């Protein structure tokens, strides 16, 4: 198997100008995290590939990169899940249905979902890292017969930090996929597993020689996940991960997202691990 992290060209025109989208629905996911569904003010569908992201703007406040977390099979509705951590994410969170948000995108490389056909697919998610993986999960489940085992390993800090709880329940109830969850610290009535996500990886459930892994979460978590996957036989050429860097343009112009010789906004965010292994292990790149 030889799969590269692919890129596709976004629409032409002035790439600096945001397209306006109307907020249709806002759903509170966690105390600090919300999902919004938006539609273009000028009509028309919004096509994207799983793993790609948009630059979202709040009027007069700023612009931030946010992954697309909806279903690529439903281009009529654009979905983003955002955690409020600062000024721009707070301003976007304050918007109500009927308000307007600026969108530039989609940008970046995507999870090689089609290329993984025939193999087992292992998703390793940490915290809000489940959001950029969800479109890939949707696409694979809509094309289920073309894949081997589908396994989701999801770790979060506490049970209160688990994203998409209803959906996780539904996935856990399905016979054609396996969804395993672990938390760093049990709180309340948590009766599930406690520990780090690598513990789940070691539990297996996938064919070590015929698996593709998609990994997204905090950088430290990804480090351990990649290492454990390697120990379980999933080599770097079959591991894909999504990198995060500061971004001010998503076009390759601002320089902020540089990760070694690559621009995370254009060459990433999804990378094949063996392509960045060397950089990944150097301090402060």
């Amino acid at each position, binding site marked *: 198997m030889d799969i590269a992290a692919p890129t596709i*060209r*976004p629409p032409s025109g*002035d*790439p*600096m*100008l*945001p397209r*306006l989208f*109307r907020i249709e629905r806002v759903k509170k996911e966690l105390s600090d995290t919300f999902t919004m569904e938006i539609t273009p*003010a000028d009509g028309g569908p919004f096509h994207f590939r799983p793993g790609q992201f948009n630059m979202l*703007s709040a*009027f*007069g*406040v*700023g*612009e931030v990169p946010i992954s697309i977390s909806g279903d690529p099979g439903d281009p009529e509705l654009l979905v983003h899940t955002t955690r409020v*951590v*600062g000024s721009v994410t707070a301003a976007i969170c304050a918007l109500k249905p*009927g*308000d*307007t948000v*600026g969108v530039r995108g989609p940008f970046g490389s995507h999870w090689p979902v089609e290329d993984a056909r025939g193999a087992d697919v292992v998703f390793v998610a940490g915290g809000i890292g489940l959001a950029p993986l969800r479109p890939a999960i949707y696409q694979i489940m809509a094309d289920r017969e073309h894949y081997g085992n589908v396994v989701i390993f999801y770790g979060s800090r506490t049970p209160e930090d688990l994203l998409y709880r209803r959906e996780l329940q539904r996935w856990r109830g399905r016979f054609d996929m396996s969804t395993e969850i672990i938390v760093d610290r049990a709180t309340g009535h948590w009766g599930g597993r406690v520990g780090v996500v690598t513990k789940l990886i070691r539990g297996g459930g996938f064919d070590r020689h015929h698996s593709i892994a998609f990994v997204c979460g*905090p950088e430290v978590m990804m480090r351990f996940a990649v290492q454990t996957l390697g120990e379980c036989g999933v080599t770097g050429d079959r591991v894909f991960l999504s990198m*995060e*860097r*500061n971004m*001010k*343009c998503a*076009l*390759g*112009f*601002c*320089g*902020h997202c*540089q990760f*070694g*010789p690559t*621009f995370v906004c*254009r060459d990433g965010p999804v990378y094949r691990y063996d392509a960045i292994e060397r*950089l990944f292990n*150097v*301090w*402060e*790149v």
Partner: protein
Amino acid sequence: MVEPDKQDHPIMAIDRDGLNALIQRLAAEGYQVIGPRVEDAAVVLGPVAGVADLPAGWTDEQSGGHYRLVADGKGEAGALFGYTLAAQGWKRYLHPPRTRLWQAHREGRSWRVEAEAAPQRYAFLGVRACELSAIGVLDRVFDNGQFTDPGYAARRSGTFIVAVNCGRAAATCFCASMDTGPKAHAGFDLALTELPGEDRAGFVVEVGSPAGAAMLQAIPHGPAAAADIDAAERAVATATAQMQRAAGGREMVADAAGVLSRNAEHPLWEAVAARCLGCGNCTAVCPTCFCTSVEDTTDLSGEVAERWRRWDSCFTLDFSYIHGGSVRRGTASRYRQWITHKLSYWHEQFGTSGCVGCGRCITWCPVGIDITEEARALAESEGRT
């Protein structure tokens, strides 16, 4: 006067009146002419109305952390382009320190976004060979095969370029070893070489584009004498010779790209960090550093929003900030990012070096950190030089 042959432009000559006519003609055609002038004891770029505005009789002395303007003793009759490089390059015109990207007006719960109007057309007078290369580098950055920066493209395509070849290298110059100078080979509309020696010397002129040919037609000019063509070539050869390391000049070490890519882990980074102030001067004066940040603002009524882009520097802590903390926390990793990007990553990103050998970062570094010496120290530690 002869007709320049448009197929195969012969080498022409103009005198100072011809140069004056060129400046005026460019202005008459709607260009804002930007050229060198003396301000605050330095050569800087700014609007020029005629030859009288140019830095006649001034030359410069540059070394690590040091710049001084020096009179050549001939005053008005002295060379117009006897200095090497203005402190700030042309970057500030093509890729300004601050630009508005767009404006938006609130309309009920929606907004209306307006793109920016067409920019000013510039004519650049006195672009050095290394600076032409730097403009070529920026051209690749802002048209990367996937996206084009429309503002840069508009400013760039409207620009008329008069290059001036160097007859002298400053102690900080190393374009010869970067293969970017001291003679301009392409990328100009007209290229001048100031003839050395005599008072109020004229120029040998090469034509680089149809627009350049047309412009030359419109001003007094004549064929260049063989002796003048010779003298111009010798002037450029002098500058090249001055940069030879064997003759006390400056060179970038061979295979700098490989040296940097092999040494991400090296004690040198901490050693440089002990001297580097992290001020970002090098990135501000570098003609190819392109990094920017954006700022969104609203007016007092909250009805109009604007997005501004401004120069940024990889030497700031904020530059690599993501939630939880900056990626490049120490000066060591920031200096490593800067020099590795310039000399190595750039090749992978844009198929060219990000350093053109202008030496500005050496001159304007308050503590005189020297990109050629740091690269050489890494190479020497590999035991290859």
